């Protein structure tokens, strides 16, 4: 088994007195594509933000590329962030810059490469995601899928060791979603990049993931290969994986004290 590049050790994150993540443990292994699954509000995006060092954790520790994120100096954190790439849910392109300038920005900021070389690298990265002919366009001229692909080109600009994807298929049509999935698979296979994908799109997760973990109410419920997840007998896993209308997730919503709330209303 390959070495973990990220180790999440009993990490807790508290918002407004509520534990969004409660002593979560997770290893991300070198070269794998790990899908973190979970419904809305399960804490999966928070976990991603903790792993990229954008927010601090309240308990436990995260070891990223051999160093504790909590104990990193500003310089060490900058080094760590240069070694990772992040594709945000909306693409998060800088709207005041063209697609090419978006991709070039990390290189202009972190390397001494001459402009001519940067232009060549930008063309290569955009070709990888199929956006070479749209290099001069502004983000506002792109469709949702193109924005995500441009965001991906920017994320791989510095040839990262780990790529994080926040809901890469959300809001996309099935064909575009499949294209993005194929890009994730290609990057993983061709470049050997470790990928961490946060998603609730099961089709997409089954296409791309080597391993999956399911997060519910700030805790990991199960971890396994896509096959193991499909064959799981856990009712919560089955409901999530197959999108069933009956199961623990919907039961939980129905027992939310609705009657008490109605009876408590002063008419």
């Amino acid at each position, binding site marked *: 088994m390959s070495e973990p590049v990220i180790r999440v050790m009993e990490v807790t994150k508290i918002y407004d007195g509520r534990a969004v993540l409660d002593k979560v443990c997770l290893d991300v292994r070198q070269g794998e594509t790990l899908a973190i699954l979970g419904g809305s509000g399960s804490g999966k995006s928070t976990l991603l933000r903790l792993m990229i060092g954008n927010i601090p954790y309240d308990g436990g520790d995260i070891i990223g590329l051999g160093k504790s994120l909590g104990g990193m100096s500003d310089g060490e954190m*900058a080094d760590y*962030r*240069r070694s990772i790439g992040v594709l945000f849910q909306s693409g*998060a392109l*800088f*709207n005041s810059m063209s697609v090419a300038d978006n991709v070039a*920005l990390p290189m202009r*900021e*972190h390397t001494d490469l001459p402009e001519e070389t940067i232009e060549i690298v930008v063309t290569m990265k955009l070709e990888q995601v199929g956006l070479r002919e749209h290099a001069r366009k502004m983000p506002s001229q792109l469709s949702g899928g193109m924005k995500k692909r441009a965001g991906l080109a*920017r994320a791989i600009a510095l040839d990262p060791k780990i790529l994080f994807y926040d809901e890469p298929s959300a809001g996309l049509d099935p064909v575009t979603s499949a294209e993005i999935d194929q890009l994730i698979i290609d990057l993983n296979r061709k470049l050997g990049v470790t990928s961490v994908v946060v998603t609730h799109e099961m089709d997409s997760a089954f296409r791309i993931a080597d391993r999956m973990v399911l997060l519910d109410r700030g805790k990991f419920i199960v971890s396994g290969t896509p096959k193991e997840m499909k064959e799981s007998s856990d009712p919560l896993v089955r409901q999530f994986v197959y999108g069933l209308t009956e199961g623990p997730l919907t039961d939980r919503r129905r027992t939310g004290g609705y009657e008490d709330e109605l009876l408590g209303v002063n008419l």
Partner: protein
Amino acid sequence: MRLIIGPITAAVGAAARSLEFMGGVGYLMRDALGSARRALFSKRGRRLGWSNLWEQMERVGVKSIPIVSLVLFCIGSILALQMAPTLRDFGLVVAIPDIVSIAVFRELGPLVSAIVLTGFAGASIAAEMGTMVVSEEIEALEAHAISPIRLLVVPRMLATTVMMVCIAVVGDLMGVLGGMLVSRWFLDLDCLLYIRRTFDILKLQDFVTGLVKAGVFGALISTLACYLGLGVSGGAQGVGVATTRTVVLTIVALIAVDLLFTAVFFFLGL
């Protein structure tokens, strides 16, 4: 008892929030000043910093010159017209250039220019920053190990400070021009006489104190706009709230700082 404790608690809470706010603005200003050198003079900083700075100077300064010119022209004209009846009673119409030039150069030029710039650039910077927060652009910058302060705040702060000084000079001249033309058309005051009296009454310190104030006003406008913009939460509504707060708080802060400066200059005899 509750009647006494309630207002005291509210006052203490408001004071604590105000202190926290001022501390946050102070920290942002310190961080921006700390990273200004690297943003502009380091090898990599030169590549992004200067192009950002020119872009912001054009956006903040060049584009606001027409509106500042118009407003200060009107202010100079209004001043001359408002004072004319009283001064005429004392046979002192000829003193209009003295009053207009001192008022405009020392006070109204920098202050009114700063208020116009708050609406023109401050609101726009806050809305821009807030939108960048909402659309995850700021988070993306941080995830790429790019400091938003160095890339976004420093150019805006420097551009607003430098351009505010330039705009104040243009505003001063337009204020005097407004007063002069009104005096010529309606009060039969010769233009050459007006200009001569303006030069006679104005001292270098009137000009310099106005420009010092203008520079500080510029830094204040951009720092508050960036601070409130970067602190946006709650989507589009949050952006709207930040923009409004930027305009209101900046105008209050400008007048408070202006009072402070005027008091200091008064006691220093400047």
